[in-house]
């Protein structure tokens, strides 16, 4: 394979900051809490692959977006079968109270 061919196949993975050669996406295993700190204020779609007895979750960040609806649109477009969708921030915005 020529160098030029390889260069054409290099893909940047924005969520994991990895450069990947070829079409196969190999994602890095992440701690969900770390992902939440890094992408605070965004909605995350996370594929949980591992959990610890203390409640820590590990897996792959599938997608992220500040807009919840956009994130779901992306998941449907990519035909993602399984995902944990969670907000990286307080469930109730500070200063507000929930009355349901």
């Amino acid at each position, binding site marked *: 394979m020529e160098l030029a061919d390889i260069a054409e196949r290099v893909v940047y993975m924005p969520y994991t900051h990895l450069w990947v050669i070829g079409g196969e996406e190999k994602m890095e295993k992440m701690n969900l809490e770390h992902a939440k700190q890094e992408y605070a204020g965004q909605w995350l779609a996370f594929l949980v692959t591992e959990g610890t007895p203390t409640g820590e979750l590990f897996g792959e960040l599938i997608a992220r977006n500040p807009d919840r609806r956009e994130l779901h649109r992306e998941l449907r477009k990519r035909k993602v*079968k399984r995902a944990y969708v969670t907000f990286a921030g307080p469930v*109730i*915005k500070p200063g507000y109270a929930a009355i349901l």
Partner: protein
Amino acid sequence: MQTQLDIPIILRRLEICGPAGSREVDVILDTGAVYTVLAWDVAKDIGYDPAISERRTPIITANGVIEAPLITVERMQLAELEAETVDIVCHDIPELAGIEGLLGLSFLQHFRTVIDYAKGILEITLASRQAETSRPGRQ
């Protein structure tokens, strides 16, 4: 399942399954809600289209009465607790909240729910009748 009580009571990773897949979402426990409520997008992700659902139900919210689509999802699971064919109301919670639903009685009615503020514990377990029939060796 047993968890520490916070206010509001947030339950993480409620799994909802449909014909196109599954989603796990964070929800608020709402023992006053007849139905479990999920955002439209979650229903669409797992293969339902609330817009064409023939079943509608009027729901009373803090802002008044609205009519919302009602669907039946294949399965819902919270920790080890599982329920099949659960009725769900599709309704978007305002975006100020970082949740995508409310866990209401259409799911909770399958279980025994104890909110113990004195001990600071929420416990949702199989109802005693279910627990008895699921004991190994019992007919």
